[in-house]
């Protein structure tokens, strides 16, 4: 693998895990525009544990995940008191507070950032990305996943059906924290350096876009969204600065043509081999009848 390719694959893996973090809350109807804040905490926790506490990678990454899971759990209580655009603003404000704190904190290197001694290679990133993808696909196939999607569609009726809406929402925020922390810790260990400026508002917006453009109805959404957002700008590189214009137009078109995301449940159903076979049989049957 060339250095260029390895770089793209690495960032794709990190983005994918990050996108799944935002997806699990979005699938249950909560929009988190504070993704960068969670990722930053994960990255800095791993960086601190590695460079200051001299801990090995197999401790720094789980520790980072535990910390961001706890932050996700705690932040869910005030955030879940808000709805819709107010929740978007509340999570956004959280990320700004985190970035501001890290920039001003001498413990975490302030604007200079931190160097992370232990390196994690691309194979580990791929393994983690595949693992997280499978985990989220599995989760969405369980009753918990069904309850999450029910909450997304109708909270009051979900409650009447016996779903503990608040518990599911808190759990998804906690899981989102852990996954965002994992993506941050992997970022820190792969690029060997963290700085607060990287975890900015644009990153939060991008990752939420991965999920919304990809689609929040199935676990395919973040996968397609991350691929789309990571690879299209690279493919458009030949166009020079115009690539941003083309990319922007592509996003607007996507939102206009597929407002519920690129991948919807109906699309998945239409593409599934089982349905394809039955439809083919029906078509053949009709031909015979005609």
């Amino acid at each position: 693998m060339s250095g260029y390719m390895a770089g793209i694959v690495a960032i794709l893996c990190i983005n994918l895990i990050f996108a799944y973090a935002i997806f699990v809350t979005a699938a249950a109807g909560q929009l988190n525009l504070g993704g960068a804040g969670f990722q930053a905490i994960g990255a800095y926790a791993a960086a601190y544990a590695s460079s200051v506490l001299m801990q090995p990678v197999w401790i720094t990454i789980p520790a980072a995940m535990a910390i961001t899971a706890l932050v996700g759990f705690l932040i869910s209580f005030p955030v879940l008191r808000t709805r819709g655009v107010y929740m978007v603003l509340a999570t956004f404000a959280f990320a700004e507070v985190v970035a501001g704190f890290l920039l001003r904190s001498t413990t975490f290197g302030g604007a200079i950032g931190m160097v992370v001694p232990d390196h994690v290679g691309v194979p580990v990133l791929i393994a983690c990305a595949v693992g997280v993808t499978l985990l989220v696909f599995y989760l969405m196939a369980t009753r918990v996943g069904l309850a999450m999607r029910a909450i997304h569609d109708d909270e009051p009726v979900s409650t009447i059906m016996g779903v503990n809406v608040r518990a599911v929402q808190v759990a998804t925020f906690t899981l989102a924290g852990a996954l965002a922390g994992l993506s941050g810790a992997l970022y820190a260990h792969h690029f060997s350096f963290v700085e607060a400026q990287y975890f900015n508002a644009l990153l939060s917006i991008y990752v939420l876009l991965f999920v919304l453009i990809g689609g929040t109805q199935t676990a395919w959404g973040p996968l397609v969204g991350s691929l789309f957002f990571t690879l299209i700008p690279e493919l458009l590189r030949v166009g020079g600065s115009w690539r941003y214009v083309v990319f922007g137009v592509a996003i607007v078109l996507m939102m206009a043509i597929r407002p519920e995301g690129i991948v919807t449940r109906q699309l998945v159903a239409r593409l599934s081999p089982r349905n394809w076979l039955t439809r083919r049989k029906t078509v053949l049957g009709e031909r015979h009848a005609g």
Partner: protein
Amino acid sequence: MPAEPMLRVSHVVKRFGGLTVADDVSFDVPRGAKMALIGPNGAGKTTMFNLISGVYPIDGGEISLDGQVIDALPARKRIGVGLSRSFQNIRLMPHLTVIENVMLGQHVQATSLASLLAPVGWQRGGRWRRMAEERLRQAGIDVDPDSAVSGLPYGVRKKIEVVRALMSGPRLLMLDEPAAGLNPRETAELSAFLKGIAEDGLTLLVVEHDMSFVHDLCEQTVVLNFGRLIYDGPTKGVQDDEAVREAYLGTRRVATAEGAGRAA
């Protein structure tokens, strides 16, 4: 000593600001009964459903299910004690398929961690899915269980909502206008289906405007008007009752010249 009623609504009061939407309402739904709750528009029928199912807290009185006081239970726990309901406007989850909507109705049955974390979405021949498919068949719903609910005809969606409410294994099933929008054939089918499930010991409380459906299904009726109970008795007598006729048709009152003059 008569058996404990399945549902007892006792002196229930609910106010929204200055408006009293349930004014000292008391009635019993006997075990195994098929009871109708009727009344003119705005009488407080759906509000009564919302109070019983816990959407709103009550301001006074008591609600008990099979002897157990339930008015302090949060809404999500009431399905667990055996109370299930449908909604006036179809409230199926639009992004869930037919079978997923029905399986959501089983949520309260899946109490163990293992059943919560089993990948039911992948288990095509699994126990939960087979139970859901069986109920759909019994209700005469002949659609692809994996199709989206949003594209289905109104009558079919209405029936799916009844099936979803049944999946929790309720003792009391409350249906809010189940026959509204159905054609006569669908209404007759629904009535036959509900009679069938009532034979298994289920108690029914039904809000409905279609009086032929009510006469066909329910032996007993309670009538609400402006949040007050005005009739509680056999369905046969309801249309002859003076208070009920007055509520639906208004009173016969001739405006006098004096009254008109005062108004002007």
